[in-house]
């Protein structure tokens, strides 16, 4: 990687690229998201942490333009906005990389790289894809991100999960995204692959992008994150900057704090049935 180590104490710009202020989303009578606030600054990574069903997906769908928010304000570059569709979000510089639907597996890498924003050459009925440019750019852009592809013609489905995420991130960076939203980029990956993906996330940050990293892994989040928003049952249960929280505390809050203590308590007493007040556990010899 050529990317320099991130200057740790980078000065935060005055205005957030994207700001959610007490945003809520309802599906019928179900409150999917209530009063969630989030700031995304250039050259920073904002992490959204939460367990399954905490509202992470709903939150990114709002930022990505798949859903409209029902209450609160959504600011892009300080301007209040309601996104109509994903194209709208892309046009405003917000690119979203989804865990499982980042790419079309059967299509070659170069077709995937430019999907939706294909460059053309020629005019009138002879307007055609600039295939040479597409292939060369794909190769060089991926190489710049440190992915050395053997063959840009191979179906992208033949790449590993981590590589597919990296291609999707490289694509977003190439197309000049200002804000990169990553939906659980490391969820299905092994330790080494996760490290590779996090490296590209950091590279995107160093390139000046604002990154939203959705994850349920506090360790991954703490490795790269500048801000942390914790979601629980559709509501915000905590919002911290890196300076104000430690990894242990983040992990504890993420796991539900007191709930975790209770759980560890329950787990502890299993091998020690005397804690049950003298009642022997059936089927277990003392």
């Amino acid at each position, binding site marked *: 990687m050529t990317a320099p180590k991130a200057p740790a104490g980078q000065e935060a710009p005055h205005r957030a690229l994207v700001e959610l202020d007490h945003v809520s989303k309802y599906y019928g009578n179900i409150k999917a998201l209530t009063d969630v606030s989030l700031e995304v600054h250039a050259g920073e990574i904002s992490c959204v942490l939460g367990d399954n069903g905490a509202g992470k997906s709903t939150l990114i769908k709002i930022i990505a333009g798949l859903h409209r928010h029902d209450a609160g304000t959504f600011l892009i570059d300080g301007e209040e906005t309601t996104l109509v569709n994903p194209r709208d979000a892309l046009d405003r510089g917000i690119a979203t990389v989804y865990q499982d639907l*980042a790419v079309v597996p059967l*299509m070659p890498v170069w077709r995937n790289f430019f999907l939706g924003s294909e460059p053309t050459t020629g005019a009138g009925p002879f307007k055609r894809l600039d295939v040479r440019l597409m292939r060369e750019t794909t190769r060089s852009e991926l190489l710049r991100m440190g992915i*050395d592809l053997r063959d840009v013609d191979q179906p992208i489905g033949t790449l590993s999960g981590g590589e597919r995420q990296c291609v999707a991130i490289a694509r977003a960076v190439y197309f000049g995204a200002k804000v990169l939203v990553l939906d659980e980029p490391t969820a299905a990956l092994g330790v080494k692959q996760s490290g590779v993906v996090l490296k590209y996330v950091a590279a995107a940050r160093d390139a000046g992008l604002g990154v939203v990293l959705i994850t349920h892994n506090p360790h991954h989040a703490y490795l790269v994150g500048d801000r942390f928003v914790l979601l629980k049952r559709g509501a915000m249960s905590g919002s911290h900057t890196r300076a104000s929280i430690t990894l242990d505390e983040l992990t504890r809050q993420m796991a539900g704090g007191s709930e975790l203590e209770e759980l560890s308590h329950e787990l502890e007493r299993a091998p020690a049935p005397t804690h049950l007040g003298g009642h022997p556990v059936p089927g277990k010899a003392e």
Partner: protein
Amino acid sequence: MSTIAGPSAPAGADERLMRTSPLRRLLGRPELGSVVGAAAVFVFFSIVADSFLRASSLGTVLYAASTIGIMAAPVALLMIGGEFDLSAGVLVTSSALISSMFSYQMTANVWVGVFVSLLVTLAIGAFNGFMLTRTKLPSFIITLGTFLMLTGLNLGFTKLISGTVSTKAIGDMEGFDSARKVFASQWTIGGVEFKVTILWWAVLVAIATWILLRTRFGNWIFAVGGEADAARAVGVPVIRTKIGLYLGVAFAAWVSGQHLLFSFDVVQSGEGVGNELIYIIAAVIGGCLITGGYGSAIGSAVGAFIFGMTSKGIVYAEWNPDWFKFFLGAMLLLATLLNAWVRKRAEATK
């Protein structure tokens, strides 16, 4: 399949990449299985039917192939886009009926009827696409509905207007001769008769291939068929792409319908039922994945050619044509198996 390497990695020739032989590249093409199949069918009928290799037979076989191929090309694109059109067969008949009956009833120049038919046929295609993208029901159901409705309308309207199941003859009407030249003429080259539909077929396949491989719309077709949600997420207009594909099928149905009308001068209203499956078979034999996202327009042409050779080869071999459907079914199974096998090998060795 790739590695993470430092910036010093060579940008030119890659030492891990074996030189891809032309044969290997050929194996990766979606239409390969169908080409092998076509060669096998050709050799087979060359042996069992003496007259199959005569030059005059070529014109007949190509004509039979073209009537299917004109429709198979847009149907293949639609399948690559992940959808079916079961109404394509009867839509051809509807298109012919509309031209004929409109011209006759209005006593207008037949070109007026032809033009009205184009509009109505495209509208039916748009209806299919619109219903599909609006209701999000499977295209199988939507176009099955359209298929049944059109079958009923074809018969019902024709009986209501002309009293019988066929339309009135329009052979003596104004514009008929020029329209026949465009849609149903023939040339003799070297003593062999070639119908104009062969030309239409070649042009449509060429355009379809160009669109599929070299335009943005083509990239979108692969994407909406391969993974519609991913395509939508990167800004591909999924709805517009699918409606466009149905319009393509409707346009080809119009061309076929006009050929049907101007080859004779009457149209039987019950025709076309069952053809929709033959178009799909041609596309599948040509390498289209039934689940979408993969295939080719040239493959559909090879599939149609196999269809033409089989349907006429059985006649030249002086067999009972009742056997034709059996051959078609066996061919479909074999071609699909061969395609699956070839693709697996091609991908494994890439």
